[in-house]
């Protein structure tokens, strides 16, 4: 009887396992054997316009541990600390973590470190492959490129702006594995490969970018400035060939900013000062209110509301043409021209030239600048705004003004990326952004001619380049007080220009923050000349036939 019952129980269990609950046990078994492994995609690389790698991801090993399998946490920590360069106490805490089956010891170590850890042959310590981001040119264009986090997600700069393109799509491997983790050869196997991220090809020229950072660093150090910016742009396409951000160091030197810094060329604003006078003159010319030879009686001081505006050099009242007012960078003369334009029209031209809104570059953190609506202007605004005070712009916005003048009155949309390369290695060129007519070609050519005089006869003589005709404008603007109305005795010095003046190909801006001396024509113009000369040679623009360098 007992035997019969036992036999019946066995039979019942057999029927249950094989028939009634077969599906459930089958699924359970499969669940224990089947592993889904997420395959991380390769992040897209960043190249300059000639294909030099500026940012790329390379395989690395991440060291991890299973605390349950670690027999001697203190011993492991003591041996690993000098190799991984992590505090022994930190490692001990991780290796002793109760209930944990997975703890990171060090993410993304190099091959040499991984080999040294392997040689230690510590039980419970394992490796998992990951990829690590590298920037081979170090700090070159670092604030422009941006940075990624520990999990390769874009955190700033172009890495953030193009995160969706560059991240790629993860793949998946579904495989049956035995308890030792080995693949079961005849088992289930499904493989969906990861889709690599797309590569970016920038408009940046690595050689010119390097030269811009070098020249700017020298000027910042030489003139004791706090920092500097420089941008070079192709006026017909808006391609940014170089965008340099430089900071002063505590030891008196200077160098490029790291990738954790803001891209000040597009995020920070400053009062442009005299470089903005070209907008006032452009408005007057375009509206037919003046010609380049229209004369004004220009004193050296002018009272407006509760303020007296002065020229930078005392002089008797002179009959100066519009051309001379711009060439001499006369504040009073420009205010008189501005008064003829009027508040509403001046505001319209400032906005048409791109002030008060982002350039369309799409860069993270880009500033639209500061431009009050005309109804909010102060009584002194008709004195400040025409000469570039009372408004704030980014270096890129100001450069775009001059690019418009050099591009026959059409304002180009700046861009940093000229193409992407898809996962199959095919290049896809991106169309330049739309251009906007700001002034007529005739007005633009007239302005170019006057700006050329500003370099040959005016305040911008140090921007001259042997063999090339240059058109441009100096700027020396007082910095506003930080927590009060009014201006400090510190200055921003700048120079914006175009070359070759007879048919501009390139525009460039150089800005120095609090240099000594403070004049744009003295400190910024020479940097412009050096940088523009290099840029013209790189672009293969021949000099004029009558001179040699």
């Amino acid at each position, binding site marked *: 009887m007992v035997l019969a019952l036992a036999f019946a129980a066995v039979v019942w269990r057999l029927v249950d396992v094989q028939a009634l609950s077969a599906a459930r046990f089958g699924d359970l078994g499969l669940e224990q054997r089947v592993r889904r492994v997420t395959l991380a995609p390769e992040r897209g690389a960043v190249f300059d316009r000639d294909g030099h790698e500026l940012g790329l991801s390379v395989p690395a090993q991440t060291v991890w541990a299973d605390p349950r399998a670690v027999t001697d946490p203190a011993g492991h920590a003591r041996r690993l600390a000098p190799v991984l360069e992590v505090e022994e106490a930190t490692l001990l805490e991780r290796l002793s973590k109760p209930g944990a089956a997975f703890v990171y010891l060090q993410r993304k170590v190099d091959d040499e470190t991984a080999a040294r850890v392997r040689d230690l042959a510590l039980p419970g310590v394992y490796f998992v492959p990951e990829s690590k981001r*590298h920037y081979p040119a170090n700090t070159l264009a670092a604030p422009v490129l941006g940075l990624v986090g520990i999990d390769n997600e874009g955190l700033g700069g172009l890495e953030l702006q193009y995160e969706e393109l560059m991240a790629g799509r993860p793949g998946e491997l579904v495989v049956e594995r035995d308890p030792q983790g080995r693949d079961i050869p005849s088992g289930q196997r499904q493989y969906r490969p990861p889709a690599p991220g797309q590569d970016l090809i920038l408009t940046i020229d690595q050689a010119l970018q390097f030269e811009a950072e070098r020249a700017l660093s020298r000027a910042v150090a030489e003139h004791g400035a706090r920092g500097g910016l420089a941008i070079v742009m192709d006026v017909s396409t808006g391609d940014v060939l170089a965008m340099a951000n430089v900071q002063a160091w505590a030891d008196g030197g200077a160098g490029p900013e790291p990738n954790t810094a803001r891209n000040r060329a597009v995020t920070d604003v400053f009062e442009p000062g005299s470089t903005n006078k070209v907008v006032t003159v452009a408005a007057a010319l375009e509206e037919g209110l003046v010609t380049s030879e229209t004369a004004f009686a220009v004193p050296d001081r002018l009272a407006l509301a509760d303020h007296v505006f002065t020229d930078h050099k005392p002089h008797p009242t002179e009959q100066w043409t519009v051309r001379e007012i711009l060439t001499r960078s006369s504040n009073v003369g420009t205010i008189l021209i501005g008064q003829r334009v009027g508040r509403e029209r001046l505001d319209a031209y400032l906005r048409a030239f791109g002030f008060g809104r982002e350039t369309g570059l799409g860069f993270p953190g880009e500033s639209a600048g500061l431009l009050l609506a005309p109804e909010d202007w102060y009584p002194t605004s008709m004195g400040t705004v025409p000469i570039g005070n009372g408004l704030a712009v980014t270096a890129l916005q100001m450069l775009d003004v001059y690019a418009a003048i050099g591009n026959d009155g059409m304002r180009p949309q700046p861009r940093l990326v000229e193409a992407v390369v898809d996962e199959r*290695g095919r290049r896809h060129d991106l169309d330049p952004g739309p251009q906007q007519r700001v002034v007529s070609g005739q007005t633009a050519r007239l302005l170019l001619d006057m700006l050329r005089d500003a370099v040959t006869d005016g305040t911008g003589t140090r921007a001259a380049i*042997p*063999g090339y005709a240059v058109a441009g404008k100096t700027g020396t603007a007082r910095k506003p007080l930080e927590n009060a109305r009014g201006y400090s005795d510190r200055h921003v010095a700048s120079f914006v220009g175009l070359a070759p003046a007879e048919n501009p190909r390139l525009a460039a801006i150089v800005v120095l923050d609090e240099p000594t001396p403070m004049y744009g024509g003295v400190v910024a113009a020479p940097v412009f000349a050096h940088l523009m000369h290099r840029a013209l040679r790189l672009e293969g623009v021949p000099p004029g036939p009558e001179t040699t*360098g």
Partner: protein
Amino acid sequence: MSPAAAVAEARAPRARAPHLRLVTALPRRRVRLAATLTVAVGLLAVFGLVGFHVFVVQTQIELERLEAEVVQEQEQFERLRLEVALLSSPDRVLGIARDELGMVEPDRVTYLAVRESLPGDESKPAARTWAEVKPHLVARR
């Protein structure tokens, strides 16, 4: 049994004997041959199945080994790519030019004006495709 009972039993109608048919016995040789063949085929099938399974497993192992090798080579390619980029960084090149080769930047640049046109002046250089700039990356993808 009494004589009378025996007589009675003898006289009682007997049950009909089942119809029996004489069956000729198969030759022993044929039976043995059939059995041997069956076993042989069975064994062949089993061994064949095992052999096929071994082949599949070996091929799978080889495939995984090759896949791992491909991954390894690709990773090595990426590392070398980084090394090339590091070696050609402008900072490094400038340092070598200045500090090791003693090169200096010129004070001035002299341009030579070529008055006569040269062969090829009229033709524009073809735009460089990505495949020309980075052929190894195109192939890799």
